[in-house]
């Protein structure tokens, strides 16, 4: 079984990420440099990874080439880290507690013939860029932001990735 993660971002301005940034400012988080966001999909497939990767990015359901960009990661590969000496990038994956990927998986398998997919997950990957105040402090702050704004713990969960 192969594991593939897919991250789909926007080429056009992401108004949700911009609103989130301004809301954090209003909430008193003054040391946030930037917020960005990508749709997250994780597939477990039986078959050739390269063939699957070539096919999945051409499906308009997940990626619209006119407005989206994407990254594919095979098992063991890591999300690109844009941290520098001043700004720390924290990646937070938010997912619903109840699996909500059944609809997309049905479409991919039944309508588009992706029979190699055996399991899938979806979520939102938030990237919070915090003006660095020491590694541990930035992680704590990102978790605080997640709990105060990015998730409602009664139906969502998160992990730092």
């Amino acid at each position: 079984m192969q594991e593939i993660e897919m991250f789909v971002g926007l080429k056009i301005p992401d108004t949700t990420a911009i609103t989130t940034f301004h809301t954090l400012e209003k909430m008193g988080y003054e040391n946030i440099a930037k917020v960005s966001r990508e749709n997250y999909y994780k597939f477990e497939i039986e078959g050739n990874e390269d063939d699957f990767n070539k096919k999945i990015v051409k499906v308009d359901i997940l990626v619209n080439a006119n407005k989206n960009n994407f990254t594919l990661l095979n098992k063991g590969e890591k999300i690109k880290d844009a941290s520098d000496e001043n700004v720390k990038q924290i990646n937070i994956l938010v997912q619903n507690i109840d699996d909500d990927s059944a609809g997309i998986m049905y479409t991919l398998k039944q309508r588009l013939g992706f029979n190699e997919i055996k399991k899938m997950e979806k979520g939102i990957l938030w990237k919070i860029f915090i003006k660095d105040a020491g590694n541990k402090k930035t992680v704590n702050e990102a978790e605080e932001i997640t709990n105060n704004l990015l998730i409602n713990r009664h139906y969502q969960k998160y992990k730092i990735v």
Partner: protein
Amino acid sequence: MKIAVILFPGTNCELETKQALEACGMSADIFRWNLNPEKLEDYDGYVLPGGWSYEDRIRAGVIASKDSIMKKIKEEAKKGKAVLGICNGAQILVESGLIPGLKDEVEIALAPNNKGYLCTWVHIKNNGKNAFNAELKENEVIPLPIAHGEGRFVTQNKNLIDELIKKKQIVFSYCDEKGIIKEEYPINPNGATYNLAGICNEEGNILAMMPHPERATWNRQLPGFEGKSFEENLSLAPASKIFLSIKKYIEENKNARD
């Protein structure tokens, strides 16, 4: 008697909410989110109408819940003023922690529906006594429309539902037209825990409800209106009793204060 109908960017039910309040004998102003919140003190009550505040960014209601106007509404609610959140307004009240308001935190969620976006008619049953149902009979069943994608009340707090029952905070439950509560779709349209359709705070002056009473205020708005007389269609429908109850509550509270 003056009610502020709060308008956030993306709210879209403000006009019909204002008309419903006026039809029930109250005057109503549409109050924009970016006005001076201190002016809210001039009002006797508040309605947060339906829509898509801030385009439902992040999740429904959460951005509006962090707006400075909500701090003022919280303060005014503490004085006992009535606050009604309808649909997106309910989502804002839940995300702000005002509902159920037992602890100073978000205790419940309006999660995505089990069956996606729903736009249909439902029945709800009235329970308890609070600012929003004094004009309704005990266990009265009323027809109302719903239109939401995120309206399923859920909580991870295992004891919360028992507390809500004990403290009589469950105001409206989804039921069939005879008032029988069943968990199955379409009676419980969105899969809400315990068929929850509307919850109030412990004091009974803040209510978050997912169905839209402003879209069922007159009989002409109800299904089957074609078969009724002109006069009957001009008259108020059962859901108007929610607004009439707010009026009664404000009058009684004002009299008590005077």
